[in-house]
């Protein structure tokens, strides 16, 4: 993927094994889609495991889900959707032949929103979880009020941290790609004729967004939150 993004390292951005730019662009785009299919299967295996254990230990998973902070979850969803928008606009700016400053602006905005997501996730949610002893392996305390469902609440949090952690890792990788793209845009590499690295990296960024679109309801929402009233 780094390769597809960096294929423009050559001055004209053209690699010798291709016939023309069009073929190269199509190959890059197809390559990224195929890569995203492997990502679907990767996260999918995890989601399948989660679904099975959720059905086995429903009360424990519902307790765990209600302990998550839905405000941060929803806010982060909005932030990530926003970053997808700015990513799409950055590509649009290149496609439409806009100035390089506009491309850079949208890319930087995307990175800021991505950083905001990770900041909310790590600094507020995970830190609070640590303070409340909800991180398995780091002083997890099974509370007496959970009753008989207690012993399997840690399993929910294992899935929660593993899934959100894997998602965060993908965002951090995306960050690296965006930084490279920003530098390239700053140097004026992209124009309405050549913007394949932007487009291909955009696919990746949107995919990471989609993973969160599913993580949000699966982890935060479907745990019988209504019993908590307005909380």
């Amino acid at each position, binding site marked *: 993927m780094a390769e597809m993004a960096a294929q423009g390292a050559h001055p004209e951005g053209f690699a010798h094994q291709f016939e023309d730019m069009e073929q190269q662009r199509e190959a890059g785009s197809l390559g990224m889609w195929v890569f995203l299919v492997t990502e679907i299967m990767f996260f999918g295996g995890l989601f*399948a495991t989660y679904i099975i254990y959720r059905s086995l230990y429903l009360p424990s998973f519902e307790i765990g889900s209600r302990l998550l902070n839905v405000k941060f979850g929803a806010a982060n969803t909005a932030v990530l959707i926003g970053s997808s928008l700015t990513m799409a606009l950055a590509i649009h700016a290149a496609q439409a032949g806009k100035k390089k400053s506009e491309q850079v602006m949208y890319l930087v905005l995307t990175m800021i929103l991505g950083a905001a997501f990770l900041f909310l996730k790590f600094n507020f949610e995970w830190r609070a979880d640590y303070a409340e002893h909800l991180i398995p392996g780091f002083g997890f305390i099974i509370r007496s009020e959970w009753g008989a469902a207690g012993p399997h609440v840690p399993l929910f949090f294992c899935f929660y941290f593993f899934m959100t952690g894997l998602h965060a890792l993908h965002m951090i990788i995306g960050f690296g790609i965006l930084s490279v793209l920003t530098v390239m845009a700053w140097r004026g590499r992209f124009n309405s004729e050549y913007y394949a690295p932007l487009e291909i990296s955009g696919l990746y960024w949107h995919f990471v967004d989609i993973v969160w679109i599913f993580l949000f309801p699966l982890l935060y929402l479907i745990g019988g939150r209504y019993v908590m009233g307005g909380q």
Partner: protein
Amino acid sequence: MSAHIVPVKTYAAIFIALLVLTALTTAVAFVDLGPLNTVVALTIAVIKMLLVILFFMHVKYSSGLTRIVIVAGFFFLAILVSLTLADEFTRGWTPNPGAWSTIVRLLHGLP
């Protein structure tokens, strides 16, 4: 390059739709709908995913090959999930031969 250029207006509309759906799915979580809560939450997630794929990821304007690749990905994921669940949820069932007994009798010449 011959790619289709999506107008900014479309992007903005999709963005607003996604925000509205996020608010909606969050709000619904606080209403007791029984098992429907899960159905609604996942349906909204699927709609949001489709919006992102079709417009942000330009699949609405891209070749059939791309679509086949995406559909194939989800198809095989569905196989993984459904066949695994098929075992997990029917493991406790005891066999009730019924029609099979008839076949066995025919095959083995039993009374």
